[in-house]
């Protein structure tokens, strides 16, 4: 009955592949589609958080810090609830990392504050004796690239349909709206407003002055990014 198949080895190989792949698709795809949905409480990045994420990538923080808490008692005791795939729904690319020279950062905002990070990044040893983390003084001077952050944000909204300007459900049952600026000038204004809220929670007077004068040093964006890791 299937003699003709045996006489066409290439077709036969393709047929075998399709049949086996079909089983794979049925097993993998629905689960994958479900797990990649954002979970309640996962929000798209604001403009300043996006900029901070770029700083994080640019400085290679992910070379030493992971963002993936594994389901082990020892890990969850230290870092909090194990990571869920939906929490990375808006990460392109995700920053899981594969190396823990430093600690995991996936929920760092649960146990560190903006003020602490602000003091830590400029001189880690002052807060953590013996820390081998380098100092990042230039982040306190170099300006944040809001243009690229806005471009990334618009791309995320247009191509990946990341939900900006619509209500996002939160864990406490309420909703919030993450705005996407209509144009570049508005994006800059929006970032500056966010930056002000961030430096007000810190204690570095120079940063507060910078923001008051319309400047956003990279550290402010990074603080915004770190503060939403939870």
């Amino acid at each position, binding site marked *: 009955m299937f003699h003709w198949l045996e006489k066409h080895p290439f077709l036969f190989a393709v047929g075998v592949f399709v049949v086996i792949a079909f089983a794979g698709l049925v097993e993998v795809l629905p689960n994958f589609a479900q797990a990649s949905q954002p979970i309640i409480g996962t929000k798209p990045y604001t403009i300043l958080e996006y900029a901070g994420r770029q700083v994080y990538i640019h400085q290679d923080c992910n070379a030493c810090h992971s963002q993936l808490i594994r389901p082990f008692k020892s890990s969850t005791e230290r870092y909090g609830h*194990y990571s869920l795939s939906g929490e990375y729904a808006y990460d392109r690319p995700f920053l899981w990392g594969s190396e823990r020279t430093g600690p995991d950062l996936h929920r760092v905002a649960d146990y560190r504050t903006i003020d602490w990070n602000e003091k830590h990044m400029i001189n880690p040893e*002052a807060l953590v*004796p013996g820390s081998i983390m380098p100092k990042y003084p230039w982040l306190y001077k170099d300006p944040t690239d809001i243009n690229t952050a806005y471009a990334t944000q618009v791309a995320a909204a247009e191509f990946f349909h990341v939900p900006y300007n619509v209500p996002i459900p939160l864990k406490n049952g309420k909703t919030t709206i993450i705005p996407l600026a209509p144009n570049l000038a508005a994006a800059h204004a929006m970032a500056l407003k966010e930056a002000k809220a961030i430096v007000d929670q810190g*204690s570095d007077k120079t940063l507060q002055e910078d923001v008051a004068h319309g400047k956003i040093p990279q550290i402010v964006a990074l603080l915004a990014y770190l503060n939403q890791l939870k």
Partner: protein
Amino acid sequence: MKINKLYVSAIVMILLMLGFTYIAVGMDSKSAGGDIVNDLAILGAIVIFSATIIVAIKYVRQMQTDKATGKLAEDNWDGIGEYENELPIGWSIIFLGTIVWAFWYMLFGYPVNAYSQIGEYNKDVKISNAKFEKKYTNLTKTQLTNMGESIFIVDCAACHGLAADGLNGTAANLNKRIQVKSVEYVIEHGSDNHLSAHELATGMPVMSAGLTKKQIHTVAEYVSNGFDKSNKAGAKIFASTCASCHGADGYGTPYVAPNIHTFTPTLVAHIVGHGKHGGIGVMPAFKNLNPVQLKAVATYVTAISKGE
């Protein structure tokens, strides 16, 4: 002659394999001879090699001599045919058994016993929690303080410092109940950290009305320095403005206002579990500590605040 050749090559092969085994194992003088497991492994290897070769010889000889009989099947492939033999009974049993097993596995075997990483994690947590409870139920004060110290080093020292001095204003100095700066902040801004540890308790209202900056500073110093009796002016302001809620010596009134004279384990545990914001900054809540750990770190902090 034919048979001899077969046997000779079989013996050569066995010897060769044994030789390889010897080289593989014997290269490392410690593994050969030293451990019975290695001897057993070599013995096993000899048995497996020999059995393989003997069986191979049996079939080779059978192929050389066998004359097949029976009815040929209709299909043939490039002249190679197939006999219509009966199914071997053992094979049929295994075949049908596999089908039955497949249904069992699909409907019960897999769904009931399926492995899940999170399932294993949950089991792990349960076991380790049970172990913790068993080991640390009735702790003496020293044990509690020691446990508290290790938790403090891991969870708190990053902000409060190893000496609990607050690292230059990064966090509260825990060597005393409260700093001047914090008291001033509370008087001027009020406080809603639920420090009274009661659902119905409201926070502290802004109390700066009717007090000058200097008076606020004076009463703050009085409170911060452990209700310093020599600070007469401070004591007076406290008695008239604050004592109605906090009690004459600041030890607090249940459900109304917290103890601001000393730390107590209950107060500290409440702060650690709920977080706090005030004149110095923000402290996050620590939800990952279990009740015993919370009590331990609270006991430790209470002890250092009293200079113990």
